[in-house]
């Protein structure tokens, strides 16, 4: 058939950037119909779109509602493409355990980070919000995660992040995992003071941070 796959990727990306859910579904179906590799369509189309969204968010052109709409368009297309991914991936993807610390239910920032990491091909274990602190450690061990990402949006719940770091140290697991933190009241200074490895200003930095933390 005469459908150029680059054209499909471009349109998938554009639909994600525009938050065009119907368009994203239509182009995902087009990809399936034309036997375009589903994994490639996700990575070169949808993920590329999310990369642009992340850039626009960082530049202050997009805000949370725009990012959520883009993610929604992306997810709808992923649902269509997912059953067609050829499962022959033998290499284990880098795994990130993610969650909002105990007492804090502000999970939008964390969800944005998940969206960005998912779309960049990382495996995300999402513990959700108001996560008991020991769960971070448990999940990291269970899934052999390379990175733990924690967030807090309240000055009152921030101290929980330090407790997780301390917990990892006391269990002798601190060297096995990298820690990144984020959330409005946090800073790089704070990250350093609690013994975390990295800090992200917002979700747009998440992919870069995980890459640099896990670079061999």
């Amino acid at each position, binding site marked *: 058939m005469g459908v150029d796959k680059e054209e499909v990727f471009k349109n998938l990306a554009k639909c994600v950037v525009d*938050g065009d859910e119907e368009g994203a579904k239509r182009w995902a179906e087009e990809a399936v119909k034309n036997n375009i590799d589903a994994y490639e369509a996700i990575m070169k189309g949808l993920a590329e779109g999310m990369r642009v969204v992340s850039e626009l968010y960082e530049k*202050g052109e997009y*805000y*949370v*509602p*725009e990012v*959520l*709409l883009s993610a*929604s368009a992306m997810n709808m297309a992923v649902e269509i493409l997912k059953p067609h991914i050829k499962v022959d991936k033998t290499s284990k993807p880098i795994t990130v355990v993610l969650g909002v610390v105990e*007492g*804090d*239910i*502000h*999970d*939008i920032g964390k*969800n944005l980070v998940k969206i960005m990491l998912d779309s960049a091909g990382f495996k995300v274990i999402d513990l959700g919000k*108001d996560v008991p602190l020991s769960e971070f450690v448990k999940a990291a061990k269970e899934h052999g995660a390379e990175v733990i990402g924690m967030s807090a949006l*309240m*000055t*009152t*719940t*921030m*101290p929980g992040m330090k407790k997780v770091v301390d917990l990892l140290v006391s269990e002798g697991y601190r060297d096995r995992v990298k820690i990144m933190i984020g959330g*409005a*009241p*946090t*800073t790089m*200074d*704070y990250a350093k*003071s609690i013994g975390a490895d990295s800090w992200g200003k*917002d979700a747009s930095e998440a992919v870069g941070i995980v890459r640099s933390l896990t670079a061999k």
Partner: protein
Amino acid sequence: MSQREEMSSYDRLMAAFELKKPDRVPVTPFVREWCVRQAGFKFSEVMTNAEKYVYSQLYSIRKFGYDMVLDLLAVHAESEAMGSVLKIPVDAPPSVDVPAVNDYSKDLPKLRIPHPRKDGRLPLILKGISRMKEAVGGLIPVMGYVQACWRHTCMMRGTERALLDMKKNPDQLKELIDIATESLIVYAEAVVEAGADLIWVSDPTSSGDMISKKAFEEFVFPYLRRQIRAIKRMGAKVFLHICGNVNDRLEVMANTGADAISVDEKVDLARAKSLIGNRVCIMGNISPGVTLLQKTPKDVEEECKVALEKAMAGGGFVLASGCIVPAAVPPENILAMVESVKKYGVYQ
């Protein structure tokens, strides 16, 4: 305290809100769970016992000498009274567990304006305000808290869904904001009647970290102005607090008609002062999570000194924390904040 203070806390704060110069800059750390801990209670206890909450406020202000008592603020009581279900931890403030509005077509028609003297936790909060007024009325200003209409909306709908509704269901969202606004005006009237001298209207979901200025102007501003103007007509002062980066919307915030605009450390006080300081009082912006929580009294003093230098000139400034003070903040840091205005915040 080398100098005798001339004004009561009440007169001092009111003067600052009216853009005048008091004897010294008023100082108002936003202390809620911090006081609860100072008094030796758990947060869940004060959620059901107004007397304990009031005691924690009176105990702390007498011991630390700042300039405002605060009601049991920001516990989503307005949203709870309209059907949102709260989760209440033992020793931390509550959060919304199940929002009231899931399906717009089914749930919107069911919403009722709560009766402030009957519904949910509202009577308990009103009782607390009256008790504080009896105890310190006229000498120390009593702050009553009323959520901003957009925050109330988010607490009834779920923040993430409300944000997405801006794109996908704008008309239904606006209907919900309208109901939220109406209900808050009714509640605010009861708060003022109970004795609040000033109302804190707080809107964290309106910051530039969340929504664009354009979305703020379309979805929030018209309703927020309606809410704030209504409260002012009841005779109370109003301060509007939006956390985070609001640098692009300071003027819009001032246009709501609030007497004071309260900001956190993402806003430069000198800039805020020069931009809107001629028409609203500025409140801010000592960092609660970094400076108050983690630094020494010396660091606190230094940050307060800088804030005062930037914004106290000519009056119309209140030294406040950038947001709510965590329970774990060392008492000596609150003391350092209070002492700093006596040292550096006196008007000649």
